[in-house]
């Protein structure tokens, strides 16, 4: 039995929850550093498994621990603590932990002075547990447990420390994702009923050997699973919770929501729908299903981009942009090689899997870029105490650091090299052309997605121009603009500079977290090989 690396990664944040709370009562700053340190430790532990991932045959690293044994039915595997990590899990888990690290450092300054901070940091630890559980397990019961576990800290953090109508937005988040989770539970239940196992790998192989009468059930299972997971991903039409939740959450939570939690949805679709159920469906259904995903993806991408183009609240612009990017990820998912359905052969499809490499890489790069984007916007909100971008302008001279990080984030989101999201979007598009050869349905979706990138550039540049460039309103002498089309436009905080404060750049801990993300965005953009190696060890070895 090897060292319990993955178990420690799971247990360390769990055990630390009460300790973080106690530390927080003494000093919130220490609690933040505690959480950050835990994240760092987990990153280190995960990195230590990387060599085995890359070099071993199965390209993954597994650990199994007993959890809930069953005596009567002799089915000893019902709820095992089966933890495993492969290239895809590792990439996504690593970037999520980085974001948690950065968010907790950021919170030192951002949340300073707010109430009940010990609980906040303890909730962050709980979120870490949930995330790691989702990414690191192959047991469906544990997966579901952690999936739902994530909702609790999300609800409370958004509700308690959020902005306008925060509990309402938090409730929306909770209800929508919880409802989605019910569908996931249905899917998991169906899988257990079909295969008698709750382990992803065993279920995958058993599913393929089922007689043909179960084909319909398998189809509906796939639909239910994907639908439930897609609610978390916030694609159209189940995106409704996202704009409110991401805008009203405190900035570090927005970064985590947008960067990590909706990525968990995408990861789960890859792992569950595509990993477990997909090899067992018929090729025809698979094709139809993927085409459906492509259509949803296009609608989502355009919907998000267009709404972001005209949004007036600084965080709403970024929230709609997250919806658009989930559209890109779903487009990448729809490019899954159909040849894998019906247990097809993997060896032939190596170039066709480039789109999947791009998709997973996009999860990583989007997390980093969106995290940077939200944290910068939070910094701007924190310093100027304004939310409406029509009231901002000319901040580049007053907040140069934020201006640089905000511009880098915006350009990365728009897919401009040499920043991170370019390389992942590039891989998705190159992969799309590979799939086009096999299935000419994708010509129009690919063309439309290419056009969507022009829109994403448009809203990114608009953000930069309105917030950082131009002249500040004091210089021009413009009065507060009339209420715009943003229906959730609030009883806005008054635009009069009644505070008389000078606008300076963000405090140091916030600067440090922004800097870390900036460096990450640039490095991944120039040299993504680390993540690409990890991901490709899966796609060119065993998928799923």
């Amino acid at each position, binding site marked *: 039995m090897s060292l319990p690396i993955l178990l420690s990664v799971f247990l360390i944040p769990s055990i630390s929850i009460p300790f973080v709370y106690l530390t927080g009562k003494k000093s919130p700053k220490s609690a933040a550093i505690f959480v950050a340190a835990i994240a760092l430790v987990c990153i280190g532990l995960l990195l230590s498994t990387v060599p085995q991932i890359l070099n071993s045959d199965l390209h993954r690293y597994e650990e199994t621990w007993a959890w809930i044994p069953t005596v009567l039915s002799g089915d000893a595997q019902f709820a095992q603590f089966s933890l495993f990590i492969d290239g895809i899990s590792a990439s996504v888990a690593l970037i999520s932990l980085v974001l948690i690290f950065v968010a907790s450092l950021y919170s030192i300054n951002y949340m300073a002075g707010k109430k009940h901070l010990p609980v906040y940091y303890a909730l962050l630890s709980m979120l870490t547990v949930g995330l790691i559980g989702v990414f690191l397990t192959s047991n469906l019961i544990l997966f579901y447990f952690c999936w739902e576990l994530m909702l609790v800290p999300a609800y409370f953090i958004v509700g308690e420390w959020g902005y306008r109508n925060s509990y309402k937005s938090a409730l929306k988040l909770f209800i929508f994702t919880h409802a989605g989770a019910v569908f996931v539970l249905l899917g998991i239940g169906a899988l257990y009923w079909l295969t008698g196992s709750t382990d992803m790998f065993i279920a995958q192989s058993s599913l393929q050997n089922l007689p043909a009468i179960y084909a319909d059930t398998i189809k509906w299972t796939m639909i239910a699973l994907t639908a439930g997971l897609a609610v978390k991903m916030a694609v159209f039409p189940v995106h409704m919770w996202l704009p409110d939740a991401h805008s009203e959450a405190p900035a570090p939570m927005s970064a985590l929501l947008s960067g990590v939690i909706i990525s968990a949805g995408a990861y789960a679709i890859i792992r569950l729908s595509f990993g477990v159920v997909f090899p067992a469906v018929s090729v025809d259904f698979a094709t139809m299903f993927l085409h459906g995903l492509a259509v949803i993806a296009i609608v989502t991408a355009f919907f998000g981009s267009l709404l972001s183009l005209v949004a007036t609240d600084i965080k709403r612009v970024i929230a709609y942009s997250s919806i658009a990017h989930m559209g890109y990820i779903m487009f990448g998912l729809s490019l899954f090689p159909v040849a894998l359905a019906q247990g097809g052969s993997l060896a032939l499809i190596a*170039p066709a899997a480039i789109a999947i490499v791009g998709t997973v890489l996009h999860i990583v790069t989007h997390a980093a870029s969106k995290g940077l984007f939200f944290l910068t916007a939070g910094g701007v909100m924190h310093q100027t105490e304004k939310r409406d971008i029509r009231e901002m302008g000319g901040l580049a001279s007053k907040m140069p650091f934020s201006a640089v990080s905000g511009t880098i984030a915006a350009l990365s989101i728009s897919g401009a090299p040499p920043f991170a999201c370019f390389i992942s979007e590039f891989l998705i598009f190159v992969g799309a052309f590979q799939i086009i050869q096999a299935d000419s349905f994708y010509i129009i979706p690919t063309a439309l997605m290419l056009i969507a990138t022009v829109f994403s550039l448009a809203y990114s540049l608009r953000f930069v121009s309105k917030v950082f460039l131009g002249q500040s309103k004091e*210089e021009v002498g413009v009065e507060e603009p009339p209420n715009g089309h943003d*229906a959730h436009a609030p009883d806005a905080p008054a635009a009069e500079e009644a505070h008389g404060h000078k606008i300076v750049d963000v405090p140091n801990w916030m600067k440090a977290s922004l800097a870390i993300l900036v460096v990450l965005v640039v490095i991944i953009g120039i040299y993504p090989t680390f993540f690409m190696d990890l991901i490709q060890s899966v796609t060119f070895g065993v998928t799923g």
Partner: protein
Amino acid sequence: MMLQEFSAWFVWVLPLIASLFVPVIGRYTEKGRNYFVVAVAIVSAALAISLIPDVWGKHEAVIYTIPWLSGFGGEGLSAGVFIDPLSVLFTVLISFFALIIAIYSIGYMKGESGLTRYYYLILLFIGSMIGLVLADNMLQMFIFWEMVGLCSYALISFWYKKPESIRAGVKVFIMTRIGDIALLAAIGLLFLMFGTLSFRGIINGIIAGGFNETYMIAVAFLVLGGAIAKSAQLPLFTWLYSAMEAPTSVSALLHAATMVKAGIYLLSRVILIFSVAPALISVLNEALWFPTIIWVGTLTALVGASLALHTTDIKGVLAYSTVSQIGFMMAGLGAAAMQGWFGSLYHMISHAFFEGLGFLIAGGLIHAVGTRDMRLMGGLRNAMPLSFILMGIMVITTSGLPPFASFFSKGLIITSVTESGGVFPSIILIATTGITFAYCFRMFSLVFMGEESGYLKLQRVHESPTIMLIPAAILAGFCIYWGVGEPAVANFLGVTIFGGDALGIIYEAFFNIETPIFLTLLLPIGIIAYYSYFKRYNGIRNIAAGKNPLSTMLKHAFFFDYTYDRVAKGITGFSIALTRVENALFARLPDEGAAKISRAAQPGHAITLKKGFSGSFRNYVAAAVLGFILIVVLIILTFGIGLGGA
């Protein structure tokens, strides 16, 4: 060999890395920062020149690579440099101009704020542009292609407090992005066909044959799309005029000498790659790719020249002149012959010299006079004699009078266009040459000849500082003497025309039938234009002020911008409507619908709370009921179907 590899990498890596040092140095010393930039430019230029001897006349490229991206569906993609005469030609041109502009900027941008950002971007741009032309695979080239666009955006919005600059930057970036996605699609198709993105790999793939020809034609047209956007051709040419919001040194470097030529580089590289398989060339010709290029170039040349004739903004004249001249280059490339290819490249170099010179002098003028409007200038030949002479050189060179460089290049282009079968295009091109002369002369007269305008009498106009005139003089020298450089350049590029004697070009050009037509048409058209615009000012003024269609077209720049504006406004309007739909449908409906249900369930007891959340709690319970029913239905479906079959 070691030196070649070192130079080829460092000629672009050095500026990229050095750009990161600019903010550091700039914190301590401003002069040091400026000189640092010039020093880097000098080193870069030296490295570029050192590449020349090794590739003289070679047809095969030398490639050096380092591993970069792994996997990628195969052996992975390496980063590399591709050293052949074409790339070295561009490299030398870019680094030379970088040096010129670095020196010029010291004088031109004196006293501006934000110079650290300016120099950082200039170095970043230089590194990216050279990296673009030296890239050995399509991905690397595309990365630098976009980075160059990014630097362009940042530099155009340099004076970021001005709303016009911001708007211009956004417009430029978005318009070029449209071309970028076409190029991205082309790259995707290339990877599909050949499984590799390196130029060497693509060349081998083409030689091996067996690829899908439809895809290849699609690739060709998509590449053309990318080139059109980046090089400001029809229909995506209006951004170049907007880009004039940038400081004039930036306009000279980016939008005259180098960045707009990226499209020409792309096309010439692609044509060079295609030409390894003559069968492919004929396929493309059949698919009307080459004729499309000729027509795009020709029409752009005409449109650009006519707009240059109409505009009153001095930088506008130069911008539209660039559009027009690049149109010539495109036409030359479209001739699908070595002669046209070479003529186009040669014209590119000449154009860099004379247009760059024009911008440098314009910069000095704008500094001295304080306006870009030519109607407010006039009679400056007394106050600014040196600029007067240098601009005169520019005008003569642009118009294509022999024995200056552009005479030969334009002649080559027109000859090759005629020979490739396009009679109409060459007629239009010849006419455009006349218009070129007209607008140049018009600009010259409006600015330097005549009387000093009333506006100028109020200013104290002085000559540009020496540090700004020296680069201009260097360029002027090149303008004059570049004509004799033609055979050398042809040899360098390894171009053989007319059976291998590059010197034959000059003779052919002189004794070709085009030349006398050229000259005889040129002078009358030019003189007519001159008289119309200068002497018989009133006559043309009436027509121009009148409501005839020609003037309307010209005034609105042929309605291209108008259309683009309407499209943009339409999209924004649609998005706003979409926001309203989203709010009504997705935000309020669940709330209110659920509220109605819960209110119906408790008749007479409703107390509506404004902000309370227990009221809405019930709403969500009601929504949960609906959801529950939905779930039951789904369960029945899933298991019912399964069980029904079981």
